[in-house]
C-alpha cells in the first residue's frame, strides 16, 4: 500500500473538522468558539488541497483554499470587532451571559 494515500489527508481533515465542531458546540467562550470555527475551516482546506493534488493536480482546490483563507481572515477581524464591542458592555465572554433575547 502506498504509505500516503488521499485517505490519510482526508482523515486529518475530518479529524480537525470534527474536533472543531465538538469545540464549537461544547465550549462557551466566544473566542474559543471562534477558534473552533477556524479549526473547522482548516479541516476543509486540507480536504481541498489534498483533493486538488490527487485530482491530477487540479488547481481548483488550491484556488478555493485561498478564497477560504480570505473569508477566514475576514471573519476573524469581524469576530474581534464584535467580541470587543460586546465585552465592553458585559465584561465577560461567556456566551451564556447574553440572554437578553428570549422568546
Amino acid at each position, binding site marked *: 500500500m502506498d504509505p500516503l494515500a488521499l485517505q490519510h489527508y482526508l482523515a*486529518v481533515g475530518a479529524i480537525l473538522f470534527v474536533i472543531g465542531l465538538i469545540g464549537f458546540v461544547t465550549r462557551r467562550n466566544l*473566542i474559543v468558539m471562534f477558534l473552533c470555527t477556524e479549526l473547522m475551516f482548516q479541516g476543509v482546506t486540507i480536504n481541498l*488541497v489534498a483533493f486538488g493534488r490527487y*485530482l*491530477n493536480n487540479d488547481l481548483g482546490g488550491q484556488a478555493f483554499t485561498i478564497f477560504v483563507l480570505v473569508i477566514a481572515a475576514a471573519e476573524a477581524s469581524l469576530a474581534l*470587532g464584535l467580541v*470587543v464591542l460586546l465585552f*465592553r458592555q458585559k465584561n465577560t465572554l461567556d456566551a451564556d451571559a447574553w440572554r437578553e433575547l428570549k422568546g
Partner: protein
Amino acid sequence: MNSIASILALSVDAQTVPAVLFYLFAGISAASALGVVLSRNIVRTAVCLLFTLVGVAGLYFLLESEFLAAVQLVVYVGGTLILIVFGVMLTSKSPFSRFEPKAGEVVVAIAACIILFAALVMAIRSADFRPQTLDTTQKYPVVALGQALLGDYLVPFELASVVLLVVMIGAAYLAKSRKRDDKRAVARGAATLSQKARQWS
C-alpha cells in the same frame, strides 16, 4: 552494525520520509486541535491553534502546495492569529477564567459528534472517490495557480477583494458606533451628574 546501517538506509527511503513527516504534521495538528478544545486557558488555546496551523502548513508542503503553505504561515499564523491574541488581550481581564459547559450539553454534543465522525470515517473507508494514485510526473507549479486565479477564477478573485472591502467598512463602522456609544454614555453621565448637582443645591 550492518543491521543499523540497513535501518538507517530504510529510514531515508524515498517513501518513508514523507510518511514520517505526514504523521508528524498530522499528529501535531490533531493533538493541538484537541488542545484548543480542551484547554481551559484562553492564551494556551490560542497557542495550540498556532501549532495546528503550523502542522497544516506542513501538510500543504507534503502536498506540494508550497505557495499555500507560505500563505498559511504568513497570513494565518502571522496575521490572523496575532489578531486573535490581541482580542484575547483586550477582552480577558484574567486569562485563566474558566467557562464550564453544562454536563448535559457536553454529552449530547459529544454523542452527535461521534456519530458524525463515524459517518465520516465510514465514508472515507468506502473510498469511492476517483483519484487513488498520485501522478508525480506532472508539475504542480505556482505559476499555474496565479494564472488560474487571474484567468479562470477572475470573478471569484475580484469578489474576494470586495469581501475584504466589506470587512474594512464593517470594522470601521463597528469602531465608530462604539465611539458614538461612548460619547452618549459620557453625555448621560454628565446629565445625571448635573441632575444630582441640582438636587443638592
